[in-house]
C-alpha cells in the first residue's frame, strides 16, 4: 500500500468550483431525501452518503459517459457525480413513471446506461463482477475507456473482491476498485468485520493500492487521476481505499428498529468536524482559490436544481399497474 503525495494546489479555479458544485449537488439531494423520507413520501428505503461525497466526486470527475461505474446501495452520490440527472433519480426514488427506471427500481437500482452508470445495487458487492466485466469490454474495445466499482468496507469481506483483484490483475483490466471505507458494515464497526487493512489486500495480487483520506477533495481527485491514467494506458487495475464516514444512519429509518446505539455521539461529531464539504469550501476560500461569492452562487444553483427535481418527482404520475409486466426480456 502506498500513501498519497500531497501536492500544492495547482488545479484551475473552474475545476475546483466544478468539484465543489458536484459535492454540493449530492449533499442537497441527500438532504432532501431525509425530509422526504420523514414525510413518508418515499415508498422504499434510502441509504444516504452525506459525508462521503468527495469520493464519488473525485473519482467520477475523471470519467465521461463512455466510462462505466458500478455502484452500491448507497449510490445517489455516484449517480450524480457520473452525470446522472438528479431529477430522474429523484422521480425514481419516489417510484414515479418519469424515474430513470420508470419506478421499477427505486433508490437501490437507479441506473442510467446512457451515462455508463451500471446501477446502484441491492446486493453488497453485487457491482464488482459487473464492473470487472465492463472493464473487460473496455479492454476489448481498445478505446481507452475505464470501469470503476465502488464498494464499502463491509463489502470488502465478500470473496468476489479477491476474485476480481486476481482476474483484473492477470488480465491488466482497466478497472478501479474504489472502497469507500466509512467504518461500518451496517451496524458492525470496521475492526469487527475486517481483518487488516483493505488497501493491503491489493499487494497479494500485484494490484497497486493506496489508502487515502476520502474526505479530502483534492487528494481524492489526484489519487483518482493517477489510477484512471494508469487504466487508460493499459497498465491495469488500481485499488483505492478512501477513508470516510457516513453522517446519517445506515438506512434512513434505522431508529425505528434499532434498540441500542452502535456508535457514539462523540464519534459522529468528530467526523462531522471533518465534513468534506465545508472543509473543501474553507480550503477554496481561505486559499483564495475560488471567491466565496462564486460558491454562494453555486449553492443557490444546486438548491434550485434539487427543488425543481422534487417538483418534477412529485408531479410525475405513478406507473400504470400493467407496466409491472413489461421489460422482463
Amino acid at each position, binding site marked *: 500500500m502506498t500513501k498519497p503525495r500531497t501536492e500544492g494546489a495547482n488545479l484551475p479555479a473552474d475545476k475546483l468550483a466544478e468539484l465543489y458544485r458536484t459535492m454540493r449537488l449530492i449533499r442537497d439531494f441527500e438532504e432532501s431525501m431525509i425530509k422526504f423520507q420523514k414525510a413518508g413520501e418515499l415508498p422504499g428505503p434510502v441509504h444516504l452518503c452525506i459525508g462521503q461525497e468527495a469520493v464519488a466526486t473525485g473519482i467520477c470527475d475523471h470519467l465521461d459517459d463512455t466510462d462505466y461505474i458500478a455502484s452500491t446501495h448507497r449510490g445517489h452520490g455516484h449517480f450524480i457525480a457520473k452525470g446522472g440527472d438528479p431529477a430522474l433519480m429523484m422521480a425514481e426514488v419516489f417510484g414515479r413513471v418519469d424515474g430513470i427506471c420508470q419506478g421499477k427500481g427505486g433508490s437501490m437500482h437507479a441506473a442510467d446506461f446512457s451515462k455508463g452508470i451500471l446501477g446502484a*445495487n441491492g446486493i453488497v458487492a453485487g457491482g464488482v463482477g459487473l464492473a470487472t466485466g465492463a472493464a473487460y469490454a473496455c479492454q476489448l474495445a481498445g478505446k481507452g475507456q475505464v470501469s470503476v466499482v465502488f464498494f464499502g468496507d463491509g463489502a470488502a469481506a465478500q*470473496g468476489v473482491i479477491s476474485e476480481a483483484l486476481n482476474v483484473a490483475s492477470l488480465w491488466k483490466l482497466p478497472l478501479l476498485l474504489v472502497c469507500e471505507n466509512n467504518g461500518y458494515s451496517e451496524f458492525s464497526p470496521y475492526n469487527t468485520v475486517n481483518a487488516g487493512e483493505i488497501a493491503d489486500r491489493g499487494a497479494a495480487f500485484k494490484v497497486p493500492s493506496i489508502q487515502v483520506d476520502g474526505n479530502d477533495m483534492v487528494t481524492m481527485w489526484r489519487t483518482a487521476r493517477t489510477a484512471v491514467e494508469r487504466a487508460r494506458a493499459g497498465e491495469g487495475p488500481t485499488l483505492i481505499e478512501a477513508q470516510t464516514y457516513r453522517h446519517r444512519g445506515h438506512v434512513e429509518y434505522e431508529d425505528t428498529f434499532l434498540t441500542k446505539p452502535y456508535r457514539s455521539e462523540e464519534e459522529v461529531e468528530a467526523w462531522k468536524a471533518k465534513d468534506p464539504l465545508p472543509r473543501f469550501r474553507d480550503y477554496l476560500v481561505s486559499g483564495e482559490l475560488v471567491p466565496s461569492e462564486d460558491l454562494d452562487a453555486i449553492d443557490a444553483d444546486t438548491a434550485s436544481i434539487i427543488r425543481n427535481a422534487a417538483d418534477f418527482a412529485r408531479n410525475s404520475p405513478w406507473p400504470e399497474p400493467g407496466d409491472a409486466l413489461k421489460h422482463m426480456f
Partner: protein
Amino acid sequence: MARKRLMHAIHEAFVEEMERDERVVIFGEDVEISLFGDTAGLADRFGQMRVRNTPICENVMTGMAAGAAAAGYRPVCHLMFGNFIYTGFDAIANQVSKLRYMTAGQIKLPLVYFAVYGGGRSASAQHSDVMYPALMNLGGIKVAVPGTPADAKGLLKSAIRDDSPVVFLITGGRTGAAGEVPDGEHLVPLGEADIKHEGTDVTLVAMSGMVAPALVAAQELAKEGVSVELVDPRCVVPLDEDAILRSVCKTGRLVIVDEARDMCSAASHISAIAADKAFESLKAPIRRVTVPDVAIPYAPVLEKHILPNKDTIAEAVRAVVNYRKQ
C-alpha cells in the same frame, strides 16, 4: 395461550432451543444488534461465542454452517434477507443438499438457514424474492414456511432439532403480525399441514405470507355461501401431500396461492400432484394464484398489481366454484 408477534415467537424459540442444547449457535451479519428483533439480546444472554456477528460473506457462511454441523454443532446461519441465500447458494446447492446422500448417510447436518423474504414493502427486486421454489428443487433440504406466530415457533424449534438441513423462511411483510402462541413447549413437526379453516366446496392451499389473506378470503366467501377449506402445508419440503389430497378429494376443487413466481412454483408443483393423484375427484380445473414471471418492482402500484391479495384469491375461488363443463 398468549398473543405474540411473529418475531417475538421466533425469539422465544431461539431462547428455548439455545437453553435446551448448548450446541445450538447462531451466526450472521449483525445478529447481535438484530435487524428484525428475532435475535435481539441473545448475545448478552448466551455470549458472543454462541451468537456471533459475521462479516458480509454469505459464500463462506453457508459453508461454515455445513462444516460446523458436520462437526457436531447445531448452527443457525442467519442470512438476513432471503435474496442473500443466492449469494451463499453454492454451499447450499453443491454441499449441503447432497452431503448426507453422497456419503450414504454418514453425517448428520443439523443446521438451519434463516431468512426473511418476500415482497410488499417496496424493497425492490433484490430484496423481495420468493426463493423456496429454487430450494425445493435441490432435494435434500427441508423448507419451512410458517404463516402464523405459533407455527413459526413450533417449526423453528423442530428445525433446530432436526438432523437434516432446514431453510426457515419468514415473510418480511408479516414479521410484526400477531397471533396466539401456546404456552410451554410447543413443537410443530416438519411436513405436517394444518387446516386453518374447514370447508366443503373448495380446497384453498396457502402458505407463509399468503395464509392471512387466504383466511380473510375464506371468511368473506363464507358470507357468499362458498365453503372454503384452507390448508396450510407449513413446509414445502417435506410437503404434506396426504393432507392436501384428502381435502381435494373431499371438495373436488383446488386453488393454490403462492407468492412465488408461477413457473416451477410450490403452486405448480402442488397442482401437478393433485392433477396426478386426485384427477377423478376434480370437478374443475386447478387454479394457481401466483406472481407473474417478473422481478418484483419498486413502485407500490406495480408491486401491488402482481402480488396475490384477498381479492385475487377470492376471485380464483369463485371461478373454480362457478366452473361448468362446456
